[in-house]
């Protein structure tokens, strides 16, 4: 059977991540952390981005697990701080943030809501194998790459041939 005939499914890790949230006995903490945004793309929460992996109570301690996006991304340190600040403000003083590298973060974990927010913010969301990229301003697909690397690790720079605007594209990894 050809791949195109299969019903598209979530990546297994993403399915498990959503289930951890759905079945969590501390849903209020997950909701609380929806307020923590990517400092470089402030419309995206760490949940939308696929960075927030798990929240667990370990004894008296609250353990938050995240998966960083890019190895050198400086936003990750800020996200960790912001998580702790958000938790402390609401009384969770005994909490810890742990990074987990494996399985490696992928843009496939980004929620469809997150993709929509990106588009509205003026960043073209990632497309499988970097084809079929759409201009976030005029929706044209007649676009050209200016630079593989952009203002942050996660983006490349494109130009729309229809409306002549330059735009950021969220790289597919």
């Amino acid at each position: 059977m050809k791949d195109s005939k299969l019903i598209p499914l979530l990546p297994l890790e993403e399915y498990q991540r959503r289930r951890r949230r759905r079945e969590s006995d501390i849903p209020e903490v997950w909701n609380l952390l929806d307020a923590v945004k990517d400092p470089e793309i402030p419309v995206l929460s760490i949940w939308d981005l696929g960075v927030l992996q798990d929240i667990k109570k370990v004894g008296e301690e609250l353990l938050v697990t995240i998966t960083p996006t890019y190895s050198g991304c400086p936003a990750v340190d800020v996200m960790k701080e912001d998580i702790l600040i958000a938790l402390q403000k609401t009384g969770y003083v005994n909490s810890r943030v742990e990074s987990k590298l494996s399985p490696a973060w992928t843009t496939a974990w980004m929620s469809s809501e997150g993709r929509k927010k990106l588009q509205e913010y003026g960043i073209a969301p990632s497309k499988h194998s970097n084809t079929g990229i759409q201009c976030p301003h005029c929706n044209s697909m007649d676009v050209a790459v200016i630079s593989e690397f952009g203002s942050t690790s996660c983006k490349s720079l494109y130009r729309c041939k229809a409306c002549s605007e330059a735009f950021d594209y969220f790289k597919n990894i």
Partner: protein
Amino acid sequence: MKERDIDQTISVYALRLGDDALILGHRLSEWCSNGPFLEEDIALTNVALDYVGRARNFLNYAAQLRGNGSTEDSLAYQRDCRDFTNFLMHELPRGDFAFTLARQYLLDEYEALFLAELLKSKDSDLAGIAAKSAKETSYHLRRSREWMLRLGGGTDESHRRLQLALDELTGYTTELFEMDDLERDLCEIGVAVDRSALFDRWFSAVSKTFAEANVTLPPASWAVKGGRIGFHTEHLGHLLAELQYVQRAYPGCRW
């Protein structure tokens, strides 16, 4: 090997990989604000950032296994030349744009093969770092390979400079594929990568690109090596003087 010995050996291995990433990342970062044009400046510093991040991951793991209060920072800032175990190619001065990109391309092809093997490592931490890095390297490789074609097929000047860079680099490539006992032992237990087995695939990939770019990687009639056991070129000391300056001048300084 006893379990504690294995941990210490893996720590040395992680340190080697961390040193490679740290030193190359530093060399690339020297282009910040000096790139030939804006997009390229941003690209070079993005790649530098990926490498410094990769270094942090490897060094952090090496420090954990090493214990004794080691941290990623103490490993990066408080060791001297002879304690660094990066390959020599990584520490060579950045040279001109053709030299930086030629080195990057040779290493991107190598890294792509190396990381694809390391992500099968039985050590889950090393495999995790490799999985993350492999995705980044696929982006680096696409760009550096394109530059080989553009420089090789560009002007007489760009072609001449690219060929000159390859003439200078060829003798440093041998070291990438030479194994020592430490890595062979780790290979046997499925932790490390057998780098010597990567050569044929690496050589055929780079030869194909260089044929298209109308340049040649001269056969390595000379070879310089020693990085893995701490014998370095004179350039590493100068690099470390800059990289470690703040921590040497103000030990323990934080901001």
